């Protein structure tokens, strides 16, 4: 059963796997081109201790009756096929995997982020429109741009770097501009007072 890409109603399709063909949704009656794939099921072959008859087999640290097939790259524990987690070119046991996810040391598994470079650009825009708040928005924009760029580098991503540097530049100009304007106003007020 597959969903229609237009109305999301699930239905069976007449097209055969591996063949590109025209289909028509039975609910919305609109056509679409479909290609069905048949992905292989994930292989999990769990060997029991003593199955292969090999001497010196080690048991899994979490499942005593299962034969270990690898060691955790982080803690060194023996793990069976059930426990084994392959992630970012490392073999991990479930406990180490959980710890690394919580510590955000597996960047490819993070799914929620703050768009700090976008926030910094928004602060710059508000600061330009409401220059009186420039003393707050300017440094805030620089801070968020800096932390945003650091996050991008940590995740190994390049999209957004230009926005980050642009926000940092505009935030800096906003801050300096605010001080210049206030300084000029104070200076002209002082000159006026001295002249009076």
């Amino acid at each position, binding site marked *: 059963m597959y969903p229609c890409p237009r109305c999301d109603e699930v239905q069976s399709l007449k097209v055969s796997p591996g063949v590109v063909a025209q289909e028509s949704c039975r609910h919305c009656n609109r056509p679409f081109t*479909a290609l069905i794939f048949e992905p292989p*099921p994930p292989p999990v072959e769990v060997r029991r201790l003593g199955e292969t008859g090999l001497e010196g087999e080690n048991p899994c640290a979490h499942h005593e009756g299962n034969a270990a097939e690898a060691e955790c790259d982080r803690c060194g524990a023996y793990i069976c096929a059930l426990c084994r987690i392959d992630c970012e070119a490392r073999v991990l046991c479930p406990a180490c995997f959980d710890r690394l996810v919580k510590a955000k040391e597996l960047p490819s598994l993070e799914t929620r982020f703050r*768009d700090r470079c976008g926030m910094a650009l928004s602060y710059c825009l508000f600061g330009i429109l409401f220059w009186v708040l420039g003393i707050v928005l300017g440094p805030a924009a620089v801070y968020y741009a800096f932390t945003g760029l650091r996050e991008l580098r940590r995740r190994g991503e390049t999209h957004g770097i230009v926005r980050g540097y642009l926000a940092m530049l505009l935030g800096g100009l906003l801050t300096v501009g605010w001080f210049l304007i206030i300084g000029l106003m104070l200076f002209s007020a002082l000159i006026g007072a001295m002249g009076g």
Partner: protein
Amino acid sequence: MTATPRRRTRLSRYHQLAARYRIYRVDGALEVDELSAHDILRRRVLFDEVILMTRHRRRPLLMISLAALLAALFLSIGLALYYGDVPPAWGIGFFVPAGLAGLYVLGRLTVPIHVLTLYSPRSKARLEFSTERGAGEAWQELERAVAEAQESARRTSQVPVTATI
């Protein structure tokens, strides 16, 4: 800690009412970034889990209707001001946005959006293209990538497990 830069190619981006979407191709998967306000929610569609790929054309009827209404509204106001007791330049100022909205309506009616959708058991990735050529190239590229990933996974699953420690 700095990660090694991942190869990440942007394939498509589009907007909906409450969110913006950017779709990237990475090794072995498509990444869908949903941006709402300043939060990014990332989902992946792994190539070796794809079960269906579809392609269709659409015209954004809601946006076309809104643009047509705006064009009519600006044109009405412009005509009222042009033939009214105010300087004609005021009316001309409203003809410009009316013309732009009208151009958008004509453009979207004549040139549809091409949509590619990849489905896996847990998620889906939707890509939008303005041109048929772009959609066709993306279709071929993704079809090849999915077939290669699933063939590689099939070969790996056939290798017997013999490692012992």
